[in-house]
């Protein structure tokens, strides 16, 4: 093989790497390796001067391969690929050695860490020798979008896309749009009417010719890949069923949440005491304008209990985020409808973190809501009140504010049920190939930096299907997802990574071992040729099929056996 000209760049990352690894020593050792013509250490390789140093060497020393020993490639691989490209080198002639996350950050013995950094760098040098030039590819972008779920997130996303003159399929399972917001009376903290928020937007959806609304419909199947999906949508219930095939380029999943079933918590007697109701039952009363007990009388004592099914080891460990402010909203609405009633609010911690929420909390106290604080794990107990009481039920609370165990009267108890992922969220996840976390919520690509994308290109998530959130955040996410899609549509075509798996048909024996394994459904079997092949645009280069192929007929570009064995040899 022809001699390579390799440059090795060891980053100090300020003191992040340098405090544990002798970067200069790593560079000196790398300098001795075959093919290495320059090895330097520097403060910040990712900085402009750092990148320029690499580019200068590429030009002056005629480098044809580059190793950067620095942070995780997830952090800066693209940065350095860009630097190579800028100097006229194929970007895939880069290899990174992770001497930060996998070395300096996790070790305490500087000598051992330095020798490990040197070994990782040596492995990268051995590997980069076998790197092949790869070219990026492009596929066309279909401008239509499938929005699954017609709640506030779905409606918002659809309007945003249609407003930019792009076609949208808005699919809703129920016979009306609006989702969970349509079940709500006023909204916290400004007490605007949910109906007003929705009605105007639903009307705009109806009027917009770019949006095709499919009610009583469910998406059956989504096939294809980013920019080029086909969705099968089934409309209608038993008997009259119609099927729509939609060519789409993107998917936004806005399937929302389902309320926690209060009957699962036995100590509250939901389903047993007729006047213990859930927040959604209470919304129904508010929307009808009549707050009454089952006997039709207005309650004298209203008690609102927080965290039903939330923040509990037994049910859901997470906070459902919207219930605290919704509870305060109930206090306001109850007080305004029944000025003579006593309103008790039983909480664990008052989460009032949103804009305007702390003010709202203060105003709730001003209208004489009586707050009691109970401890996590010591839930209030509801029992029937005897004939000597002027109320129907008594709630025993171990109140943390007064430090006393008290019985408070109640004619109507409102249980603030938390949000949970929908029962059939798993089905949706499998259909569009996204993941769920331990609580069933869909997982975003990055919790901070990429909150609406998923690991499947072209599939986005917005609203409460990702995690409990309020209308404000759902709308923000829906618009963010729409903006991401409009960005892709504006470019007209989609860049597909040059790293993907390919089947060597000369070696494939058509055993079909790989067919079901691909998590991205990127492998097709050709019945006539009796060979499998990878749809490269769908492939994420995870390597599953490569490892499984009994014939060694599948090669992952940029992760060839030769490259990996060379790398292993380097660390040994």
């Amino acid at each position, binding site marked *: 093989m022809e001699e390579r000209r390799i440059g090795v760049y060891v980053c100090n990352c300020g003191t992040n790497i340098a405090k544990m690894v002798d970067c200069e020593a790593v560079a000196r050792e790398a300098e001795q390796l075959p093919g290495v013509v320059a090895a330097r250490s520097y403060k910040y390789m990712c900085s402009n001067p750092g990148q320029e140093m690499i580019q200068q060497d590429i030009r002056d020393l005629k480098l044809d391969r580059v190793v950067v020993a620095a942070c995780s490639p997830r952090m800066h691989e693209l940065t350095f690929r860009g630097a190579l490209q800028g100097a006229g080198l194929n970007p895939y002639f880069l290899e990174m050695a992770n001497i930060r996350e996998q070395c300096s950050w996790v070790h305490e013995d500087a000598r051992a860490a330095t020798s490990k950094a040197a070994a990782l760098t040596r492995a990268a040098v051995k590997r980069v020798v076998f790197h092949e030039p790869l070219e990026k590819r492009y596929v066309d972008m279909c401008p239509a979008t499938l929005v699954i779920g017609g709640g506030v997130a779905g409606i918002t996303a659809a309007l945003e896309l249609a407003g930019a003159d792009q076609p949208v399929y808005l699919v809703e399972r129920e016979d009306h749009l609006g989702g969970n917001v349509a079940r709500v009376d006023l909204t916290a903290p400004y007490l605007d009417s949910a109906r007003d928020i929705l009605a105007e937007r639903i009307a705009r959806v109806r009027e917009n010719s770019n949006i095709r609304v499919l009610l009583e419909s469910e998406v059956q199947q989504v096939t294809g890949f980013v920019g080029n999906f086909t969705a099968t949508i089934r409309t209608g219930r038993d008997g009259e069923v119609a099927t729509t095939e939609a060519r789409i380029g993107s998917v936004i999943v806005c399937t929302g949440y389902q309320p926690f079933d209060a009957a699962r918590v036995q100590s509250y007697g939901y389903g047993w005491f007729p006047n213990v109701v859930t927040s959604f039952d209470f919304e129904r009363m508010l929307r009808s304008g009549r707050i009454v007990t089952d006997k039709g009388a207005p309650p004298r004592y209203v008690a609102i209990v927080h965290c039903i099914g939330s923040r509990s080891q037994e049910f859901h460990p997470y906070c459902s985020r919207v219930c605290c402010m919704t509870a305060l909203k109930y206090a306001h609405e109850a007080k305004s409808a029944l000025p003579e009633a006593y309103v008790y609010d039983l909480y664990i911690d008052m989460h009032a973190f949103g804009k305007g929420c702390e003010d709202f909390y203060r105003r709730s106290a001003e209208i004489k809501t009586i707050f009691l604080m109970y401890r996590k794990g010591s839930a209030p107990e509801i029992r029937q009140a005897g004939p000597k009481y002027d109320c129907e039920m008594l709630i025993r609370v171990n109140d943390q504010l007064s430090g006393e165990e008290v019985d408070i009267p109640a004619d109507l108890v409102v249980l603030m049920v938390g949000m949970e992922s929908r029962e059939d969220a798993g089905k949706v996840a499998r259909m569009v190939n996204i993941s769920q976390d331990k609580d069933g919520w869909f997982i975003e690509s990055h919790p901070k930096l990429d909150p609406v994308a998923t690991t499947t290109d072209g599939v986005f998530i917005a609203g409460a299907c990702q995690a409990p959130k309020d209308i404000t955040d759902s709308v923000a996410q829906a618009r963010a997802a729409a903006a991401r899609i409009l960005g892709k549509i504006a470019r007209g075509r989609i860049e597909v990574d040059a790293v993907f798996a390919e089947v060597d048909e*000369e*070696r*494939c*024996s*058509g*055993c*079909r*071992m790989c*067919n*079901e*394994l691909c998590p991205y459904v990127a492998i097709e079997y050709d019945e006539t040729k*009796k060979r499998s092949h990878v749809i490269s645009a769908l492939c994420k280069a995870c390597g599953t099929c490569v*490892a*499984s192929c*009994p*014939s*060694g*007929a599948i090669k992952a570009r940029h992760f060839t*056996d030769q490259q990996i*064995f060379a790398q292993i040899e380097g660390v040994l």
Partner: protein
Amino acid sequence: MAERKLQVALYWGAACGGCDVAVLDTNEFILDVAAAADIRLWPIAVDGKYQDVEAMDDAELDVTLFNGAVRNSENEHVAKLLRRKSKIMVAFGTCAHLGGIPGLANQFSREEIMERAYLNNPSLEVGNRTLPQTQTDCAAGQLEIPRFYARVYRLADVVEVDYTVPGCPPHPSQVKAVLTAVVTGTLPPRGAVVGASERAVCDDCPRKKEEKRVARFYRPWQIIQDPERCLLEQGILCAGSVTRSGCGVRCPNSNMPCRGCYGPLPNVRDQGAKFISAVSSIVDSKDPEEIDRILAGVPDIMGYAYRFGLPGSLLQRSL
């Protein structure tokens, strides 16, 4: 050809004798061989002593068909001797090629093997404590037997091999093919695996292959199989997908699963690892306990996956 007959040796290392029987199974052809060639050494059928071989000139033999693995010092000594005396050295059969069934012993130490074979075995005389020794002094003088190695080697681990004929045993037609090629001078490039395909057994197997999802594994006698359908899909542990073809799909065509005797595909380093990954890939469950239950239906995964290839596998640090 007329002036000088072909000079041939056949030898067995650690082997069962099946490869030699395969040579005899060429029937009348063996008589043609005998007519066209001098068989200089063939312990199973022809009288010949090591001293006779030692007395030969180097490269005096045209071809040696070496079957069996290298288990002891005698196997290695004769392999090296025949290599020196032969123009062409053929690793004949799976044991010489990959280590074969004897290679499964590499799961155990020499001490464990001795213990099992000579000290703790139901077929031994009760109380036996006799272990074979390399050297034994007795009235007649000092007796010497070959040294039992700590592990089994492939032929290619001890001598340079020119050609490989895979199979446990190779089909008699393969024997004819190799000898005919030597006689007619139509040998493939050195290093070739003779008579093997570049693709897996599945490529030649006529059974219908669909998507593989297995909820229970069976040994062949535990299930009435569908003779049209891929055996692996029926839960029968068939190694066809991880094995080079060229055998004529004899086992699956006889309703028996491929055992893997032709060895790994040309691009593959470790056939057993591929087999394990194939089996684990098709388990039809995502529930850890159920997966354990399904995999418990595979009684001896080492025996299945590395039936023939343990000495040459990555597990043995062979590359």
